[in-house]
């Protein structure tokens, strides 16, 4: 760290030192949605432990998760999860050295956003 004087640190150079682009936005979102997915796992832990605790605890949990606020949180959490999943496949593709050219990164970036939205809508149609 000694020789790095005042260089802008990713992702904080976005907007000020560096132009916003779809590719930087999808990259930043990958990390953000990964963290959101990890934090949201607390909901899964709560749902499962309430199920193990018995019918009363389960009813309290489902009435909260089924409430307007619960559904609101869950809707964005599942979208974050699906975004991370779809963009994760994009990253795995890059790891295999496919799709690194600029037009393809933009195309796959758009596909990821649309696919995650479709998956999330499908999920909420089932729910």
């Amino acid at each position, binding site marked *: 760290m000694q020789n790095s004087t005042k260089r802008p640190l990713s992702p904080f150079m976005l907007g000020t030192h560096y132009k916003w682009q779809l590719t930087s936005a999808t990259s930043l979102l990958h990390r953000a949605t990964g963290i959101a*997915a990890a934090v949201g796992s607390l909901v899964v832990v709560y749902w499962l432990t309430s199920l193990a605790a018995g019918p009363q605890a389960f009813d309290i949990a489902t009435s909260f998760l089924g409430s307007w606020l619960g559904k609101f949180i869950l809707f964005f959490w599942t979208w974050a999860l699906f975004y991370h999943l779809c963009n994760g496949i994009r990253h795995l593709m890059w790891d295999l050295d496919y799709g690194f050219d600029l037009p393809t990164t933009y195309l796959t970036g758009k596909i990821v956003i649309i696919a995650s939205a479709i998956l999330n809508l499908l999920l909420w149609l089932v729910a």
Partner: protein
Amino acid sequence: MSRLLTPLKKVRGLGSAKEGVHHWWMQRVSAVALVPLTLWAAFSVASMAGKPYEAVLTYFAAPFNVAMFTLFLFAGFYHASLGLQVFIEDYIHHENTKIVTLIAMKLLMVLLGTVSILAVLRVTFGG
């Protein structure tokens, strides 16, 4: 003082001479496993939305469901701990704070993973 250190000594600790390749590989392998597991778990839970307690018990009584859900939880919390590790390493530069945060995060992921898997097993095997 740091001029006296050999290049190997400099990269020890969390540096590149440790187990970065293993971390990188495990992140990818768990990601590949999580693609089908997440889709399966998400749509399973969505299909149980609004269903009574007994219906969820029936779901977790089926061996295939229990196996897949346990694998989802294991791979998910493992992948989360690997991902959060990178996030912490990238953004916390104070060495002691970084180590403490890393240990706390790792232990929390093990705790949440264990609790949620035990909850599933209790629902399946417990009365």
